[in-house]
């Protein structure tokens, strides 16, 4: 991969193995018509999909693809290429409408109309490039009958077509679709790789280390945070709030009162808080057993250590389990107030 990376523009952080597999396919000109890229959000799935599209349509010699500098590469990076389509929920909303009210909520998945649109589009030959590429950014989100409609394209794709499905995990795609795709699995990116990528972009060592630690392998988040300092601030505020709720009696009262009361309207907020609490109990556990360098929330480290020092390991494990149980309960529609109260009463004080 390194030799290739030297010749071409490959701004994917980490994922050496996946990059090598993609490279082999492109250099040998054995292009699968369908790819399935899986991995957690933010590790570079869409970046890889766009890189494949660039490599396929790049105007340079094969060894130098993707160059990142030709008209085709630039258009693809700007998502402005006539033959490369990134279909995501925002695209679906614009192109086939998502209805309003209740219907809009249902349409958080690829609808059959969207798939039909894509099918009608794929039969038209590419205009500017050699390949027509459709990237389905979150293919885990097919609505009920959409996979069957999509299968027709996967079974007999036109010779110039490449479909790239992006999904959270391989289980999200139905077996019929999975078996027709070249699967590329992306894992989390190691902190060392993120640090080195950040250093490469001129970020100083201290900030790079800090960002890499917070990122937890989601390199996309790091780059977002670099360009939007607000994100770091928002995260800080969210963490402080969550920590306050966790550690103070008044905060805990708010969980069973205000937060439980507004859960129906602000579901996402409750889930974010719960995810933070899970992370904090996990950190407390790590601190107890002396693994302080693997914390999710290094910026809370010292305060969390002070506060949690008085709990023993079984107590923390129990609190962690209670928090996870609450997440599960909310998913299965247990009344929010009861689920949250049950959780808080199992937390040690």
């Amino acid at each position, binding site marked *: 991969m390194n030799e290739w990376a030297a010749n071409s523009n490959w701004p994917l952080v980490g994922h050496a193995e996946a990059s090598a597999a993609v490279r082999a396919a492109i250099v040998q000109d054995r292009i699968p018509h369908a790819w399935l890229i899986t991995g957690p959000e933010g590790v570079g799935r869409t970046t890889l999909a766009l890189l494949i599209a660039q490599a396929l349509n790049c105007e340079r010699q094969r060894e130098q693809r993707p160059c990142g500098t030709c*008209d085709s590469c630039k*258009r693809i990076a*700007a*998502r*402005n290429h*006539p033959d490369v389509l*990134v279909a995501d929920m*925002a*695209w679906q909303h*614009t*192109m086939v409408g998502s209805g309003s009210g209740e219907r809009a909520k249902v349409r958080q998945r690829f609808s059959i109309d969207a798939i*039909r*649109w894509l*099918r*009608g589009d*794929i*039969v*038209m*030959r*590419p*205009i*500017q490039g050699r390949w027509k590429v459709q990237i389905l950014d979150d293919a885990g989100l097919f609505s009920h009958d959409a996979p069957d409609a999509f299968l027709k394209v996967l079974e007999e794709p*036109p*010779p*110039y077509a490449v479909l790239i499905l992006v999904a959270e995990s391989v289980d999200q795609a139905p077996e019929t679709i999975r078996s027709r795709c070249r699967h590329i699995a992306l894992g989390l990116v190691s902190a060392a790789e993120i640090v080195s990528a950040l250093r490469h972009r001129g970020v100083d060592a201290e900030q790079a280390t800090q960002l890499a630690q917070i990122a937890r392998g989601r390199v996309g988040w790091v780059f977002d945070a670099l360009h939007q300092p607000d994100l770091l601030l928002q995260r800080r505020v969210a963490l402080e709030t969550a920590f306050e709720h966790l550690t103070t009696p008044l905060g805990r009262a708010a969980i069973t009162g205000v937060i439980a009361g507004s859960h129906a309207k602000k579901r996402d907020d409750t889930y974010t808080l719960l995810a933070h609490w899970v992370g904090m109990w996990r950190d407390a556990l790590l601190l107890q057993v002396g693994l302080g360098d693997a914390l999710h929330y290094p910026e809370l480290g010292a305060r969390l250590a002070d506060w949690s020092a008085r709990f023993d390991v079984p107590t923390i494990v129990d609190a962690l389990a209670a928090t996870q149980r609450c997440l599960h309960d909310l998913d299965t529609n247990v009344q929010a107030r009861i689920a949250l109260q049950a959780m808080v009463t199992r937390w040690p004080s």
Partner: protein
Amino acid sequence: MRVTCNQDDLHKALGTAGRAVAAKSTMPVLGNYLLEAADAHLTVSATNLEIGISCTIPATVDKPGRVTLQARVLNELVANLSAPTVELRQEQNPLTVLVEAGHSRAHLRGIDPDEFPRPTATLSDEPALRLDPSALRDAIAQVVFAAASDDSRPILAGVQFEARDSIVQMAAADGFRMSLRTLPLDEEVRQPLSIIIPARAMSELQRVLADITEPVELRVTPNASQIVITGPAVAFISRLIDGAFPDLKQVVPRQWNTRTVILREQLLDATRRATIFARSSNDVVKLEICPADSGLDMGRVTISANAADTGDNRDDVDAQVEGGEMQIAFNGRFLHDVLSVIRSTSVALELQGPNSAGVIRPVDSDDFTHVIMPMVIGS
């Protein structure tokens, strides 16, 4: 860019090119016109990636250049200008354009013209075909309505366009009906051609051709991805559909048991009346064909429809009938569609039986064939 042109010319060019502006797209630049000024011409282009239309108008070019401007805004603005000439001038900020006409001044903000999709690859000088615009328009009208309008079979949403020897043949089908049309050419085709053009693009081409009187030239890009049709001041580009079009000629029934020649207008009027009643009963329109009793009489076609909650209607139309009696039912809308695009005074209806496809052709020429599947009627 600094260019002056006639307001009326510009308005017309914006209107024609505007047919190709993307109504919805995730690429904002597709909602814009590309304006290019060079060599005493202003060219207005728009594309939605499926079709593209460019119109060229005469203009005084003080400074050549290119800009993109929001289609809806520019179109409305120019339509409402009262001065005879319009000046377009790029401001200090190259993405802003000053539009000045008489005492009216407006600033429009655009998008970088480099974001606009590149025009199609270089084409050969010699066109693949030269066609008469009004003949082409008529031919399109006779086939395009038979193409599939849903997306379930993308290939059938196109019109097959074949050229060889000295004819063009166009075909479209949606599974219930099909149209075949031949168009004679003045010259021999140098390179046989077989492509599938999206039906939506054909309908737009039909509109564009309405304003053209001189022959148009047709070219296909070397990789067969696009077709380009150019007239004196307009260029129309469409993407092509890839795939194998079914061989429709095989589907045309070769024999008939009853052949009816009938005045087209009379049958069309009767069909119109019948569809009113057929609306709530799946558009079923019944045709009963009776041959003449003797050599002195005319035969008769009875066109009827009924709906339980609306009522019913019958029309008797005189016709020349060869062969035996026949009863058949068609979708009234389909019948109406085909009868409206045939030009001849009389049409021939050739039938094999109540459950076989029916053929409709004009009687004075053999360049058009339409086939409709019958609907099943209870006994």
